[in-house]
């Protein structure tokens, strides 16, 4: 117990509050900066919430189409950043897209690359026209429009409201941060740090990063650099290094935005940081060569005397070089991020029934273990229901599941990895630990069997969730396809899982004295029949050219995942429902239909109408 008392995580919030409180008391500037950061993060949360309102709809289709190829996602990043004049905002919005699984991680990386290139148009505008888009000016109207839209009933309008609020708060946050740092800005006497050679480049790059991190805008840094260069405060070479630093610094803003995002968002933020660090490294290593290329190009363009435009050209060139160098390796980068950037658990599901006292007697330990596996099943039930885009309330109701599946018009956004880590894996770990603890004690044969069965049930539940993860990926892509056979196929898959969830739920709610695990056999038979029908339907549609072999293969794979989900849920339910004595369990085992029984019954009359039992059923009595 003392370990918990000493755990610093229990007190970190208090420590943070004390530090912040002290900061607010001591410095009004700090208060402004902290408020800026808070508004900025809140803006990110609102943006993500807003984009979630549009998942499964037109926006998703547009986004998917505009980012399904690398060149398209890069072009999308360039275009949107040129329009918005803020790579930070585009990066943050992209994180929201990836977090909501509206676009893939690879497409997100492409957009970020494009945004880095698009932001260089700002340097041209500042250097060439002396313009700078003041985003803070848009904050107030965005907030007002946002709140008005938030008060409306329509979900879509509300979603738009959250988007407007998100943008407003982001702008306001950046504005407050800039205001807060104004005092610091005065202190930057850049000419004081002139150092020749590589050290000079590294030093000015560092300064560029620092200014950008503090001001939260690479545009603002470029403004400072251009102003300093125009005033002769710094040399042209130092300005180039500062521009590299400004680029690198903008990744830090994205990293802050990634903090509030889910696993996908965090991976994208990481990709942004990696991309910017690599671009900066290449630019620093080749700064002299690039300077020469800029000189040659500026002669061709007739801007050799304008240092400001040459700086803008350099900024564009080194970002372009970064994109060209890294674009061929996006798939590898995505793979590495998926492999190595894993979730760090924060709020795990706590076991409800497993506590040391429950180990006192075998009976209490078994009851606790059974209830906890039931708790784990409930968590998995919710996840899987959402995984097939059905609300828990629909599964729990008596409404027609076929209708509910048919009427689905949006795929529920779900980060299966995230929920798995929070709600399933942590509990599974606890179940396994507790079961091992029980097995270390003296137990009857009955108890040993029960513990083994429940431990196995816990593993089955985990397997069902893992299969859901694979299924959900394609379901998000094809589940609401406009191609009727595809939509029907996925509807069938969803319906099958929903039926299993509902049936098991109903059985678990019945009196344990009257319920028998034999009831699960009818579900097994139903699954077998559906699987056969599904495969023959697909074959027929491929033959008649209504379905391409490529999509048919995906559908068959997904049907396999759906079968895995159902089979594992049925196995887990079997263990949860078997509460009788050993002899009763053996009797149920003797009566249960085995694989050959199910196969025989499923193949008996696949498409014929069901016999009318009200008038007798000779077939089953033969």
């Amino acid at each position, binding site marked *: 117990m003392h370990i918990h008392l000493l755990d610093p995580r229990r007190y970190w919030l208090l420590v943070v509050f004390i530090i912040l409180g002290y900061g607010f008391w001591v410095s009004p500037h700090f208060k402004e900066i902290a408020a800026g950061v808070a508004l900025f993060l809140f803006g990110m949360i609102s943006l993500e919430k807003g984009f979630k309102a549009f998942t499964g709809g037109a926006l998703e289709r547009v986004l998917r189409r505009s980012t399904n190829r690398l060149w398209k996602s890069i072009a999308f990043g360039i275009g949107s950043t040129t329009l918005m004049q803020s790579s930070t905002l585009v990066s943050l919005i992209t994180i929201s897209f990836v977090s909501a699984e509206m676009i893939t991680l690879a497409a997100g990386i492409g957009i970020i690359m494009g945004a880095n290139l698009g932001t260089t148009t700002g340097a041209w505008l500042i250097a060439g026209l002396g313009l700078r888009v003041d985003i803070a000016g848009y904050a107030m109207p965005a907030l007002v429009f946002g709140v008005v839209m938030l008060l409306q009933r329509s979900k879509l309008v509300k979603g738009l409201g959250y988007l407007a609020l998100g943008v407003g708060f982001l702008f306001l946050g950046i504005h407050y941060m800039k205001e807060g740092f104004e005092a610091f800005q005065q202190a930057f006497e850049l000419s004081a740090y002139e150092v020749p050679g590589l050290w000079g480049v590294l030093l000015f790059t560092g300064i560029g990063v620092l200014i950008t991190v503090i001001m939260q805008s690479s545009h603002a840094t470029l403004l400072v650099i251009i102003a300093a260069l125009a005033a002769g405060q710094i040399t042209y070479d130092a300005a180039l290094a500062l521009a590299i630093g400004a680029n690198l610094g903008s990744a830090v803003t994205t990293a802050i935005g990634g903090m509030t995002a889910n696993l996908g968002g965090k991976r994208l933020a990481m990709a942004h940081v990696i991309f910017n660090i690599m671009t900066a490294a290449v630019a620093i290593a080749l700064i002299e060569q690039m300077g020469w290329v800029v000189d040659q190009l500026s002669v061709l363009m007739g801007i050799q005397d304008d240092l400001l435009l040459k700086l803008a050209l350099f900024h564009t060139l080194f970002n372009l070089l970064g994109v060209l160098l890294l674009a061929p390796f996006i798939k590898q980068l995505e793979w590495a991020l998926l492999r190595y950037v894993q979730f760090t658990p924060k709020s795990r599901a706590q076991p409800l029934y497993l506590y040391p006292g429950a180990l006192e007697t075998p009976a209490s330990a078994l009851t606790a273990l059974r209830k906890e596996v039931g708790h784990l099943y409930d968590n998995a039930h919710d996840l899987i229901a959402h995984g097939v885009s059905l609300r828990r309330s629909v599964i729990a109701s008596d409404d027609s599941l076929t209708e509910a599946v048919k009427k689905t018009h949006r795929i529920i956004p779900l980060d299966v990895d995230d929920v798995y880590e929070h709600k399933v894996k942590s509990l599974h770990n606890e179940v396994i630990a507790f079961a091992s603890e029980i097995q270390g004690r003296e137990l009857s044969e009955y108890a040993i069997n029960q513990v083994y069965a429940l431990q196995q049930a816990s593993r089955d539940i985990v397997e069902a969730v893992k299969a859901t993860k694979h299924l959900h990926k394609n379901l998000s892509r094809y589940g609401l396809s406009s191609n009727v056979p595809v939509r029907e196929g996925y509807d069938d898959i969803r319906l099958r899982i929903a039926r299993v969830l509902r049936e098991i739920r109903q059985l678990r709610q019945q009196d344990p004295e009257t319920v028998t695990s034999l009831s699960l056999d*009818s579900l097994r038979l139903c699954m077998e029949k559906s699987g056969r029908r599904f495969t023959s339907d697909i074959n027929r549609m491929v033959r008649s050219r209504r379905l391409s072999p490529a999509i048919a293969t995906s559908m068959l794979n997904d049907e396999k995942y759906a079968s895995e989900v159902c089979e594992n849920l049925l196995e887990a339910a079997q263990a949860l429902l078997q509460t009788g*004595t050993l*002899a*009763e369990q053996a*009797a149920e085992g003797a009566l249960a239909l085995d694989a050959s029984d199910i196969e025989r019954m499923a193949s008996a009359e696949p498409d014929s109408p069901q016999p009318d039992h*009200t008038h007798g059923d000779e077939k089953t009595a033969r």
Partner: protein
Amino acid sequence: MATKKLLAKLGRFLDADRASQRKEIDSIRKVLKKLKHKERDLREKLPKAPAGEERDEIAAKLEVIYAQRRKGLDRVKELRGVDKPEKGEGKAEDQIKDS
């Protein structure tokens, strides 16, 4: 008296296999009873269910219950090693045939 007790013990020992068979038959009967209740509930629901999906589902469940009860009866027969059904099971079998 002691001899009588010993003989009784010996009798129980020789009958051990039969006792476990009896136990298994009892357990199967218990499960058959649960199935019978379930079947009765489903039979009541069947005419009330709207034609189509729900009705087919109930019919399929009934079909499975028949198959399970059939297996149970076969197992009981096998345990007894007799072809002639006993009181309880004979009734259950007749019910399956009649239903």
